[in-house]
């Protein structure tokens, strides 16, 4: 596989009313998983909203391959090949696990309801449970499955490890690695540095709505000073 950019954000600006949230954000995602790291409130989720068209951008372009997504509705962007695992999981609370999967399953796709149940036997056990009756970990598995059923070219995950027990975090990271190996491009937005470093190869660090650093995961892992400066973390590995 080449390293040609699949998802390309160029000079994205986004405003909420009069506050300027994203400043000329440019990112390129190839088949190497990319992490977007930054503290709370620096605009990480705004980048996701911009990618999916859930908030209108003020300027800039979003390309998927050679298709311009910038002017498309959220549903058209998803159909074009984007899968979204949002922050807070946003499970439909009045749908059962089975209904979540059934309404999104596509014929002839790589991911089917059957495959989801094989990957997550826990979801099969709980298939008749409503979304708001699931544990955080189960909800996360369902949120990821829901996005995978679209068989996306690009999977965007916004803080998928938030609020999960360490053992489940490991499972989620493993799954992300598996998805990436199967050829889906992964964009992982995270606050959890260690989870992110285990799942991605490249990292973009966001401060105040701007991309301030682009490094490899390895370089960031070995640079406690950078971690402290931009992510507010003390020594790595602590």
């Amino acid at each position, binding site marked *: 596989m080449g390293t040609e950019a699949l998802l390309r954000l160029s000079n994205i600006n986004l405003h909420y009313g009069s506050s300027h949230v994203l400043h000329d954000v440019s990112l390129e995602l190839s088949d190497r998983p990319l992490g977007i790291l930054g503290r709370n409130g620096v605009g990480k989720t705004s980048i996701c909203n911009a990618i999916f068209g859930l908030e209108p951008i003020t300027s800039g372009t979003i390309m998927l391959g050679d298709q311009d997504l910038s002017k498309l509705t959220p549903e058209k*962007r*998803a*159909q074009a090949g984007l899968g979204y695992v949002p922050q807070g999981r*946003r499970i439909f*609370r*009045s749908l059962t696990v089975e209904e979540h999967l059934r*309404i*999104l399953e596509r014929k002839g796709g790589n991911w089917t309801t059957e495959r989801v149940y094989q990957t997550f036997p826990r979801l099969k056990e709980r298939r008749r449970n409503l979304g708001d009756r699931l544990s955080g970990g189960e909800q996360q598995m369902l949120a990821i499955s829901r996005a995978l059923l679209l068989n996306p070219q690009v999977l965007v995950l916004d803080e998928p490890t938030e609020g999960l027990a360490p053992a489940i975090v490991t499972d989620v990271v493993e799954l992300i690695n598996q998805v990436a190996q199967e050829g889906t491009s992964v964009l992982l937005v995270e606050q959890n540095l260690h989870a992110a470093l285990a799942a991605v190869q490249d990292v973009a660090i966001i401060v105040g709505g701007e991309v301030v650093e682009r490094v490899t995961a390895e370089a960031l892992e070995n640079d406690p000073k950078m971690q402290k400066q931009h992510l507010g973390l003390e020594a790595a590995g602590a």
Partner: protein
Amino acid sequence: MTLFFVVTLNGLTLAALYFLAASGFSLIFGLMRTVNMAHGALLLFGGYVGWSVVDATGLWALGVMAGGLAAALAGALVQIGVLGRMQGDELRQTLASIAISIILADLMLWIWGGTTYQVRTPSWLTGGTRIEVLGIGYATVRLYLMVFALSVGVGLWLFIQKTRIGAVIRAGVDDQDMLRALGYPINRIFVLVFAMGGMLAGMAGVIAGSALSIAPGTDLQFLLSSLVVVIVGGMGSVGGAALGALLIGLAEQYGLAYAPTYAAVVTFVIMVFVLAVRPQGLLGRAEA
């Protein structure tokens, strides 16, 4: 005791009509966060179309279907032609729907005039039925109305809970943006729900014209009752519409029979009470 039974049956009749009107209104409100102020106009439109069809053919069931279909089509057109173009701007949609409601009311006045209509019912719906258990007789058409409302309620519940499209509608009520971000063409679902809401309203119009009567003003009466029912019962749920309709229908009739001076106040007291204690409505869910 006879008075009590008759008043209760009157209350249930009214509740059945309110439910038919409010269930579609509630569905639209729950999914799109749009207060469709033209809902009453759709109901009256369906009623008039139904009356005309029955008048021309003598077939009552055909009139109910025609009224439902005409209002469904009108509802879909309202969504495609006007409200769908203001997606996400709920205030504008609400104001536009008020305009549509006024325009429709005038058009209907032009076509059908200002007289009161009663839809001719077939022989099996005409006259009274003796209810031995209660020791009273009651208008047959009203008893069937209750049965009809009950079947619509059950049918609608099954549709929402058991079908794939129903699941998509529930997902849309839960989190519209997420559904879109998963690639669902939500506009088509909006049109479908608008057409369904219109159909329920249109059928309610024909049935209201059979069990009671319809005239200019019926639109606003049912719009207001639908608003109150949805506020009391909770928006976006079939059960909420049913419970709200039952409470408001019974309260209105008991009020009229036992405390006529205050009858007009009763429903609003209930509404104020619900808003104070449980603002999301009795069966509604608080916003996340």
